């Protein structure tokens, strides 16, 4: 019985995550349109919802072209890596009490590790495409993700100190009285910025920067291989939104409504916020991005860890 339940949870998480990721294509276009005084896709089905289906059919039937000059094996492997690593991260996210695939004691570390592995996808894609723009995109991605990962992990240490655990379920339970966003507001801001950079979303989409690099690391990709990068990106948004919810906004905790509903409400709020950022902010220059990361974000994060640690020691 228990095994069956576990299996159901695994498939449930997979199906829900992938469905939401596909639906996000529609949601993003509608929301962007909303903030640009347009309507967005509203013709296919109710509210244009079936646009997703139309897009899927299109992308599945497109020619799946592999550049003859590309390094075949790596070229095909790269888009899979990003989807796999992000989906694996979903294993440790506690959606509601009992609805978690693997409640690891080191769930947080597992998440950080997986998001670090994700960078291989982009770098390998850029390298194997054998195209100078792709390579530039891949190199940018590597530099950007390495520098933002440093304080992504550190910005969460305040939360870990407060909760006294690396287990995500324990972290949520520790927020029964007070969401961690209050004592860890700086940590929340830093984690969100790092999260956007990790998912390579605008305004931190320098690895693909259409105006300078055509499409950066996925310039040579087409058909479903390109689709994989897209799904990976949207899964990444869901993942980062879920992590923000779990770590700073009390996960499934909330009055009246069942936990999973609260979780989804919070996650969708952050997804919408990510899309709003895309609608509002221009892309910084690459050197600005790097110096921000190393000269502003990192010191702030270190100060945050120090002060949190000192306060916890002083009041414990």
């Amino acid at each position, binding site marked *: 019985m228990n095994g069956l339940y576990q299996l159901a949870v695994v498939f449930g998480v997979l199906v829900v995550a992938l469905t939401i990721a596909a639906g996000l294509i529609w949601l993003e276009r509608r929301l962007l349109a*909303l*903030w*640009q*005084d*347009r*309507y967005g896709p509203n013709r296919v089905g109710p509210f244009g919802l079936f646009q997703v289906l139309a897009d899927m059919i299109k992308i599945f039937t497109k020619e799946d072209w592999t550049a003859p000059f590309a390094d075949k094996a790596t070229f095909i492997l790269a888009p899979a890596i990003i989807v796999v690593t992000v989906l694996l991260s979903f294993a440790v996210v506690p959606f509601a009490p009992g609805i978690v695939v693997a409640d690891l004691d080191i769930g947080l570390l597992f998440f950080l590790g997986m998001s670090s592995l994700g960078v291989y996808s982009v770098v390998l894609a850029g390298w194997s495409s054998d195209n100078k723009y792709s390579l530039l995109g891949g190199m940018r991605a590597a530099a950007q993700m390495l520098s933002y990962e440093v304080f992504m992990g550190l910005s969460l240490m305040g939360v870990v100190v407060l909760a006294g655990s690396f287990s995500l379920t324990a972290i949520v339970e520790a927020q029964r009285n007070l969401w961690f966003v209050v004592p860890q507001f700086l940590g929340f801001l830093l984690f969100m910025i790092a999260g956007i950079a990790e998912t390579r979303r605008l305004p931190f989409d320098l690895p693909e920067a259409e105006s300078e690099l055509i499409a950066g690391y996925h310039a040579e990709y087409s058909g479903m291989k390109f689709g994989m990068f897209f799904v990976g990106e949207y899964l990444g948004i869901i993942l980062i939104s879920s992590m923000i919810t779990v770590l700073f906004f009390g996960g499934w905790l909330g009055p009246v409504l069942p936990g999973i509903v609260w979780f989804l409400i919070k996650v969708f709020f952050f997804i919408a916020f990510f899309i*709003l*950022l895309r*609608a*509002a*902010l221009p892309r910084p220059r690459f050197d600005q991005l790097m110096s921000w990361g190393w000269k502003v974000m990192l010191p702030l994060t270190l100060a945050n860890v120090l002060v949190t640690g000192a306060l916890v020691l002083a009041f414990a």
Partner: protein
Amino acid sequence: MLSVLRTIWEVFLHAFRKRVTIQFPEEKPRLPPRYRGRIILSRDPDGGERCVACYLCAVACPVDCIALQATEDSTGRRYPEFFRINFSRCIFCGFCEEACPTYAIQLIPDFYMSEYKRQNLVYEKEDLLISGPGKYEGYNYWKVAGVKIGGKDKGEAEREAPPVDLQSLLP
């Protein structure tokens, strides 16, 4: 930093603005009279074809989508035997209208030209010719041109002096 937050807030406020999109098939846009849309061939005020098959439009067309063949009727009046525009190529630049010496070819405010078969976008002369003068009401090329055609001799056009008798020009 503050300006970033303000930008985010102001973009968010756009959610409550009026939409600028015109929902096309249900809602029609207002097109100005000189909008460059579907091409027509117009006629003189007295009903004759204006086009004199001079090929200027075909030459001016940057995408080469006009094809025609000149011919002449028994009175010496030139007209196109066939006149074909391939609208799947036309970029609606309006160069043909500018090149035309007789105001025959004109672009009108109409763009509802979707077809399921590409072949149907090739318009023949019957499809292009309209029965009126289009944008230029009173203009009649043959009435002002100094060319001799049936029913009108040299010197009989509007504002045209009779031809000079070369014999009488001697000093």
